[in-house]
C-alpha cells in the first residue's frame, strides 16, 4: 500500500507541476537552482528589449515587424505552395529566433529533429549546413526558407490546421498526431486550434512547442492587421517614452494617439473576439479585441461602443465611434497593440501601410498585398477556442501633443490652448497655500503649442499621416 501511495503521490505531483502555475514556478525555480538554461524569451521581448548582438546579428524589431512584401522570396515561395504569406513570414521569424543581419535578412535556422517531419510527408532535407552560426549566405537562406515553407504547407494540408503543422516542425509528427486523435476522440469542437491541441500534449511538449506555435501565429496575425481608421489621421503621440502632458514626468506611452474628430468610426484591425467593451476613468469608453495567440488591440477614448463583450468581429467591422472620454484632452483615438500582454509599437507592423512618395506603386503594392492575402488565406483558426487568456483593461496615456498641457473641460482641441499663466490655472483662493509652491501651477513654465515635429525614437516609427486603407483594397 505504501508503494501505491508513493506512486499516486508522484503522479499527482507530476500533474501539478505540468499544469498549474504554482507547479510551473516550482519547476522554474528548480531549473534555476540546478543551473539549467532559462527558457527562451517570449515573442514580446523581441519587440521591447531585443537581444545583444552576436556575430553581426541582432534582434531588430523593425525587421521582425515588417510584413511580407509581394516580391519577397518567402512570399513567392508561399504562394507557390499555397501557404499564407503572413504565416510563412512569421514562421521564418521564429526560425531565426528574431535574429537578422544589418541588411534585415533573417538568420533562418532549421529546428532540431526535423527528419521525422520530413519523412512523414515524403521530403528529404537538401544538402545545406544546418548548424553554421552567424549570418547565412543567400543560397543557404533561400534553401532553408523554401524547405520550411513547403514542409509547413504539406503538414497543414495533412493535419488540417496551421497550429498542428507548426507544432509538427518542433515536436515531430507522432506527438501531434496522437494529440489530434485524442482531441477528436473526445469530441473537441476545434481540435486543430492551439489551445485545444495543447491540452492533449504532455507538459514538456507543450512547453517546447508553445512559444514557437503561438509566436508564429501571432506574427502572422499581426502582419495582416489593417487600419483602425478609414480616413487618414495625424499621429499626435507615438509609442514609447514621452513626457506625460499632465504629470510632466517621463512615462511610457503604451500605444499611439491619432487625432480624429468625434464621431469617426473605429474599425477592427483584424478578426477577433471582444474581450472588453466598457468604460473607466482613464481610458473612457474602450474596446479590447483578442485576435488570438496573445495578440490584442485596444481602442480607447471612444464616445460610443457598438459591440459588447464576447462578440465576434470581422476585420474592418465598426466597433466604436471616436470621442474624448476618460482622461483625454481632446477627441482622439488611443490605439494599443499588445503581444502576450506586453505593449508593442503598432507602427512596427503597420509601417508598410504608410503611403509613400510613389503613391501609385505603393497602392499597387497594397493591391497586390491584398491579393496575396486573399490567395494565401489558408485556414484561419480564429474562433472561440482560439483565444488566449483574458486581457486586462487598457490604460492609455492622456492624449495630447508633446509636452502640452490642455484643459479638457472646454474640450477645445487642437485650438484653445491655455498658457500656464492663465489666471484660471493659477488662481488660489487660499493665500496660505502659496507657501507650498508645488501646489501652485504657476511655477510651471509657460508652454506654447509648438509646431508638430517628428520624433526620432526609431526609424520605423517616423510619424506622418496615419496610413489608411486604400479605398479600392479588398480583403
Amino acid at each position: 500500500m505504501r508503494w501505491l501511495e508513493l506512486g499516486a503521490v508522484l503522479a499527482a505531483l507530476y500533474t501539478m507541476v505540468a499544469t498549474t502555475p504554482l507547479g510551473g514556478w516550482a519547476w522554474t525555480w528548480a531549473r534555476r537552482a540546478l543551473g539549467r538554461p532559462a527558457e527562451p524569451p517570449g515573442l514580446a521581448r523581441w519587440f521591447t528589449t531585443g537581444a545583444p548582438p552576436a556575430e553581426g546579428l541582432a534582434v531588430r524589431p523593425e525587421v521582425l515587424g515588417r510584413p511580407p512584401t509581394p516580391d519577397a522570396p518567402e512570399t513567392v515561395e508561399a504562394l507557390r505552395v499555397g501557404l499564407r504569406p503572413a504565416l510563412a513570414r512569421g514562421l521564418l521569424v521564429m526560425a531565426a529566433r528574431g535574429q537578422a543581419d544589418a541588411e534585415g535578412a533573417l538568420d533562418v535556422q532549421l529546428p532540431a529533429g526535423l527528419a521525422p517531419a520530413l519523412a512523414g510527408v515524403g521530403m528529404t532535407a537538401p544538402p545545406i549546413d544546418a548548424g553554421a552560426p552567424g549570418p547565412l549566405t543567400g543560397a543557404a537562406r533561400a534553401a532553408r526558407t523554401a524547405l520550411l515553407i513547403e514542409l509547413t504547407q504539406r503538414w497543414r494540408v495533412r493535419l488540417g490546421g496551421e497550429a498542428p503543422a507548426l507544432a509538427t516542425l518542433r515536436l515531430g509528427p507522432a506527438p501531434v498526431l496522437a494529440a489530434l486523435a485524442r482531441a477528436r476522440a473526445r469530441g473537441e469542437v476545434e481540435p486543430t486550434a492551439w489551445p485545444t491541441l495543447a491540452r492533449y500534449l504532455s507538459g514538456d511538449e507543450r512547453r517546447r512547442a508553445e512559444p514557437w506555435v503561438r509566436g508564429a501565429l501571432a506574427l502572422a496575425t499581426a502582419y495582416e492587421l489593417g487600419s483602425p481608421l478609414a480616413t487618414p489621421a495625424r499621429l499626435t503621440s507615438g509609442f514609447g517614452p514621452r513626457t506625460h502632458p499632465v504629470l510632466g514626468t517621463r512615462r511610457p506611452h503604451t500605444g499611439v494617439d491619432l487625432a480624429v474628430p468625434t464621431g469617426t468610426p473605429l474599425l477592427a484591425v483584424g478578426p477577433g473576439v471582444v474581450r472588453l467593451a466598457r468604460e473607466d476613468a482613464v481610458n473612457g469608453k474602450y474596446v479590447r479585441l483578442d485576435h488570438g495567440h496573445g495578440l490584442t488591440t485596444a481602442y480607447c477614448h471612444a464616445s460610443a461602443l457598438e459591440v459588447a463583450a464576447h462578440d465576434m468581429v470581422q476585420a474592418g467591422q465598426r466597433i466604436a465611434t471616436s470621442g474624448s472620454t476618460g482622461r483625454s484632452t481632446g477627441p482622439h483615438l488611443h490605439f494599443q497593440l499588445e503581444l502576450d500582454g506586453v505593449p508593442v509599437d503598432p507602427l512596427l507592423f503597420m509601417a508598410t501601410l504608410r503611403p509613400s512618395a510613389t503613391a501609385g506603386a505603393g497602392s499597387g503594392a497594397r493591391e497586390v498585398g491584398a491579393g496575396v492575402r486573399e490567395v494565401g488565406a489558408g485556414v484561419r483558426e480564429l474562433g472561440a477556442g482560439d483565444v488566449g487568456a483574458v486581457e486586462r483593461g487598457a490604460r492609455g496615456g492622456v492624449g495630447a501633443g508633446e509636452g502640452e498641457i490642455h484643459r479638457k473641460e472646454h474640450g477645445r482641441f487642437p485650438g484653445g490652448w491655455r498658457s500656464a499663466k492663465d489666471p484660471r490655472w493659477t488662481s488660489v483662493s487660499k493665500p496660505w497655500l502659496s507657501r507650498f509652491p508645488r501646489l501652485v501651477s504657476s511655477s510651471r513654465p509657460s508652454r506654447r503649442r509648438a509646431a508638430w515635429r517628428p520624433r526620432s525614437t526609431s526609424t520605423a516609427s517616423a510619424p506622418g499621416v496615419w496610413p489608411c486603407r486604400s479605398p479600392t483594397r479588398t480583403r
Partner: protein
Amino acid sequence: MAASPTPHTPPVTAWPQRPPAEAQDRGWLGRAWLALGLFALVLTGVHAGADVVDDLAFEAVLALDRGADALATALIEGLAGLLGLAPATAEVWLVRALEWVDDEAARHLGRALALGVEVLVALVLALPLVDPRAPQASRVALARALRATFRDPTVLLWAAPLATAGASLAGLAVVATELEAGGRALLAPLGLEADLEVLLTRLLAVGVTSVVLVVLAVRSALRAWVRAEALAAGDARRGRIGLARRLRGSLAMLLAVPVVAVAVRASAPVLAALVGVR
C-alpha cells in the same frame, strides 16, 4: 457495588481528540507526503476551472478599481474645491491617483487573486485531511457520518466531502490526460507499433489513475466526511465557540464549492471519456 463497566475503546465523537495509538500508522514524514499528494491532486483539480476563475477574478479587480477611481475622483475634486487648488494641480493629483493601478498592475492583481483563490481552496480542502488528530475513516465512523448527514445536516457535513470529491475527480481527469501524453512521450523512443503504443499508454494512464483514485481521491473524500461529522458533533457541545467555527467552515465551503463546481464542469468531457460515456 456495581460491577465496573466492560472496558472498551470509546468511539471518537468529540473534537479534537487524539485517536487510538494503533490508528497512528505513519510518522510525520508519511503524513507530510500524503498531505503533499492530496494538496497536489486537489490543486490540480481546482485549476481545471482556471479560465472561469481568472475571468471572475479579473472582473472583481476591475470593479474594485472602478470603485476606487470613483472614490479618488470624488475625494480629490472635493479637496480641490475645499482648498481652492489650481485645476492643473488637481489634475495632477487625479491622474496620479487614477493611474496608480495601471494596466500591468491590474493584470497582476487579477492573476494573483485567481491564484490565491485556487491555493486557498486547495488548502481548505486538503490540509485538514492530514491533521493527525483527525479521526480515521473506519466503518463505525462512516456509519456515524451517514446517520448525521441526514439526521443532523450541516453545511460542512454536506459540502466538505462533496467539494473534496469533486476537486479530486477533476484532478483525476487532468492526471489521466497528462499521464496519457507523458506515457506516449516515454514510449516513443522504443519505436513500438502505433496500436501497441496507444494501448500501453492507455493502460498506463488508466492504471495510475485508478491507483490515484483509490489512494488519494476516495480516501480524501471519506476522511473529509468523517472529519466533518466529528467537527459537527464537537461543535454542537461547544456553544458559541462551536457556532463560530461552524460559521468559518460554512464560509470556507461557500468559496470552495463554486470553484470546485466550475472545475468539475470543465473536466466533464475527460471524465466522461474515462468512464466510457460519449
